[in-house]
């Protein structure tokens, strides 16, 4: 797959609404740790108020969340062909050969270094969707095999052959638009990968385009629209909220009620599966619009899942780790 950053041209009249990020997840089935590393740019990259955010979080069972979000001027974000880096957090992608993610947050006693190589099939070309007042595009990279290490809350973790996921998002919108999404990535210890995306309104009361992509035994199966049913139940709340200034501003969102369990049922006439995901913990990231008043909340729900069914002629009975992201 070919891909590159979509930084706005100097004469792009929509550059103030520009957003872009590179995102990596790691799922370490040996320890149960689940991590994310994300570097993003919000607003015209040359405008003084625009911001770059490097977020790195790892959740360790029994310990909780380690990591933080580093917020800097967008002008301090170093961008390459397909890489974004602040002084603390960096993600670089070569879609055909490897993905690297590094974060060093000494004030949090946190460090993570990941290197992933493709271990699965191509999952699809870039897609573009209407989103809020503008549009959102994404490229999704093949399932990764990740090696690396992390220091989280005083615990050293070594990742050897862990599961991984990476994607690239870009577009034009304002944080605070009446728009949101549900996205999820589930990685089975046997190599199963399932990626869900659906666009919603901010309150998650209406649902737009739904896509569930499943990779099993090297083959890719997609479920779309009403072939996918998503049900949520139970309640969890964030135990970690970032960045600090915005968490303080939105103290009323500290007890945000989020699902404790997510079930996905999919069938397309040939293939069918049922996936049950139990949420272990939640982190809340507050996104601020640097150009005009507006905020959005991204919730990262981590946990474990079981998936049974059949896809591409292969029976599925997998357990593993996953992340569900609710944005709005």
């Amino acid at each position, binding site marked *: 797959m070919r891909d590159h950053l979509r930084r706005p041209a100097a004469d792009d009249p929509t550059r103030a609404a520009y957003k872009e990020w590179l995102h990596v997840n790691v799922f370490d089935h040996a320890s149960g740790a689940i991590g994310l590393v994300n570097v993003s740019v919000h607003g015209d990259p040359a405008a003084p108020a625009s911001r770059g955010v490097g977020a790195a979080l790892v959740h360790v069972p029994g310990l909780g969340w380690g990591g933080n979000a580093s917020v800097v001027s967008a002008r301090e974000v170093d961008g390459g062909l397909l890489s974004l880096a602040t002084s603390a957090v960096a993600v670089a992608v070569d879609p055909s050969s490897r993905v690297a993610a590094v974060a060093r947050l000494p004030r*949090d006693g946190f460090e993570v270094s990941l290197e992933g190589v493709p271990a699965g099939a191509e999952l699809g070309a870039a897609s573009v969707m209407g989103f809020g007042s503008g549009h959102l595009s994404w490229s999704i990279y093949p399932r990764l095999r990740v090696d690396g290490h992390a220091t989280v809350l005083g615990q050293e973790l070594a990742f050897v052959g862990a599961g991984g996921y990476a994607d690239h998002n870009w577009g034009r919108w304002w944080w605070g638009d009446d728009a949101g999404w549900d996205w999820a990535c589930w990685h089975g210890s046997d190599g199963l990968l399932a990626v869900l995306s659906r666009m919603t309104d901010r309150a998650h009361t209406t649902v737009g385009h739904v896509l569930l992509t499943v990779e099993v035994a090297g083959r890719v199966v997609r479920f779309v629209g009403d072939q996918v049913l998503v049900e949520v139940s139970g309640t969890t*709340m964030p135990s970690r909220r970032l*960045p*600090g*200034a915005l968490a*303080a*501003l939105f*103290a009323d969102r500290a*007890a945000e009620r989020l699902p404790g369990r997510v079930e996905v049922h999919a069938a397309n006439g040939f293939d069918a599966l049922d996936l049950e995901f139990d949420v272990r913990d939640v982190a809340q990231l507050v996104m*601020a619009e640097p150009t005009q008043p507006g905020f959005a909340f991204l919730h990262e729900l981590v946990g474990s899942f079981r998936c049974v069914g059949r896809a591409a002629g292969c029976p599925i009975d997998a357990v593993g780790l996953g992340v569900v992201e609710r944005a709005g």
Partner: protein
Amino acid sequence: MPADRGLLAFVGALVAGLDAGDPTAASRVRALAGTRTARIGLDDESVDVRFAADGSFHATSVGEGAAPCRGRTDRRTVHDLLDARLEIRDAVLSGRIEAVGPVPDVAAMFAVVEVLLAASVRLPALQSLADELLGVPPAPGAPTRADLAWYPDEITPAERALLADLDLLADETGPVG
């Protein structure tokens, strides 16, 4: 405060940055503050702040007598809040943020802080002030307990159950953090 800038100058720079960068938010701050005087403290410094009728900002060294409304914290608490290691709720419940005064005055003081925080997202001048503050390491201190209770111990289970039935508990599932 940073070694080269006292609280008096820091607060002045904060208001000047808001005035220059977001006049609408600056007007909102003045409307919220009204003619109140508040005494704000950080570590061992305190200043009295107020807006005059013409909107001009006045920050002065602490004068004689008690101020009707006071807010105080320390630099370590500010660091912990900005670094996302401490929730506002826990800072207040643990006494690391102290706000004293008539309810409308304290509410106005917190509302002014909210406007400043919201505006700072779009104001590099205010972001620089935050970076300046974070650039000076605070004195070490004990971590704040994360199991602080919103309600005092003397609330009985029956009373708590009644509040829950009426959906009046501030946080039904316990502390966050």
